[in-house]
């Protein structure tokens, strides 16, 4: 009667989680390749071999060799993922031959709506402008580089000079932002609730 009888859901990651205890063995080529795949999946701008070597505690030479091998493998197998070294680092790109489908998807509006992270970052900028990237990151508790780049690209925020103290770039919201929210000026932004801590509040998403 007192047993927590919640049926264990089918969680394949439980087994995998145990492997993490010991950590992947990166001296194994396949493991290093897989670890590189994970990291390459989330980076926003090209990552240099030196940075990646530091992340994995491997030599620059080995990481470089591994990246080249992976890139060749993706190409040979005709994967839709294209690993290329452009500028000063490596990044995943879509393979050229499938670009028409990517374009169709984007035109259909798959990325038209802002993500939650983008919305939260935009909220910080709207209510704290002008504000630096570091300040935004401090409020949200996360790295916001990619999101800020996206918001600039979408024309919702723009740079307006640098902070005199820190030298960081300052951001503000644009006319387009007001337009999209249906407001005529920043003064029309609803006041935000008093910033009292709440025991019930949940932490950052």
């Amino acid at each position, binding site marked *: *009667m*007192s047993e*927590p*009888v*919640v049926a264990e*859901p089918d*969680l394949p*990651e*439980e087994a995998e*989680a145990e492997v993490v205890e010991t950590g992947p063995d990166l001296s194994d080529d396949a493991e290093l390749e897989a670890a590189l795949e*994970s990291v390459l*999946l*989330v*980076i*926003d701008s090209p990552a240099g071999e030196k940075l990646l070597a530091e992340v994995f505690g491997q030599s620059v030479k080995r990481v470089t060799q591994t990246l080249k091998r992976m890139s060749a493998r993706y190409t040979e197998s005709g994967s839709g993922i294209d690993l290329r070294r452009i500028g000063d680092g490596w990044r995943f*790109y879509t393979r050229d031959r499938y670009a028409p489908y*990517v*374009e169709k998807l*984007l*035109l259909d*509006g798959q*990325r*038209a*709506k*802002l*993500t939650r*992270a983008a*919305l*939260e970052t*935009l*909220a*910080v900028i*709207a*209510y704290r402008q002008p504000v630096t990237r570091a300040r935004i990151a401090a*409020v*949200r508790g996360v790295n916001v580089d*990619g999101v800020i*780049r*996206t918001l600039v*690209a*979408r*024309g*919702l925020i723009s740079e307006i000079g640098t902070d005199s103290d820190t030298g960081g770039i300052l951001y503000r919201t644009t006319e*387009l932002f007001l337009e999209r*929210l*249906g407001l005529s000026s920043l003064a*029309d*932004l*609803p*006041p*935000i*609730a008093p*910033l009292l*801590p*709440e*025991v*019930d*509040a949940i*932490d*950052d998403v």
Partner: protein
Amino acid sequence: MTTPDATRREPAEPVPPGPAPARTEPARTEQAQVDPAQRADPADHGTSGRFKVKLTNFEGPFDLLLQLISAHTLDVTEVALHTVTDDFIAYIRAMGDAWDLDETTEFLVIAATLLDLKAARLLPQGDVEDEEDLALLEARDLLFARLLQYRAYKQVAALFGELEKGAQRRYPRSVALEPRYEGLLPEVMLGVTPKRFADIAAAVFRPKPPRTVSLTHLHVARVSVRDHVNVMRERLIAAGQLTFSELVADCEETLDVVARFLGLLELYRETVLAFDQPDPLGELVVRWIGDEDAPVVEFDEDEEYG
């Protein structure tokens, strides 16, 4: 509710469970451990601290009950409810001034049921003699059902926590577009109203709360239920009847309100009071039905509610 007669109801011989929904039988051994007569023995108290159970954090009365039951290493049964009544009341008293009335209400409702059960010496196998017994049994079943219900969701919540933990180890791809596609994006949409946007901002800006509620203030304030009993006795004799609001109108601390409430239950046990509450959550009217010069029944508040 009519005048109770607590003395009439002696612990009955164990009989098969009453009209309560069939559940797991409480283990016999547990029942022996928690014999109410033993616990009521003053010799049990005194130097032995009553706060044997130290809880770090709880979310509401059901959570507190479950934690107390678990601390006594009991199964969740009606018997367990009996066992932890004293601990439960002790927590309410100790926490009294740290809560607002909103939070306290639900605790008081549950405390009242627990005390009713205890006062009636109603064992799980309680024999049904009259409508009053039946009402008490129903109250017990409802409380027990709500406790089990809460436990079910609490278990699910724990599972949610595990799922979240697993999901947090998998990072979704969410990167800026390759430059070649940047010109293709349709017009951006925020998808929220200004009000929602402000709510999101507020949620982001809100200071992160500490993870646990400090209980360092436990044991700080002590209020004498006996004093409150005496105050209320005088007022009720003078006025004949008063609402609960009137009885607590002069209380400055929540703890005092709690003490008055407990005091009322005490007077009720002396059978000098009657309660009227026409609607659930409606105004509680307290009527004096005792003798004006009735002898004051001495009681040891620690024994009963510690």
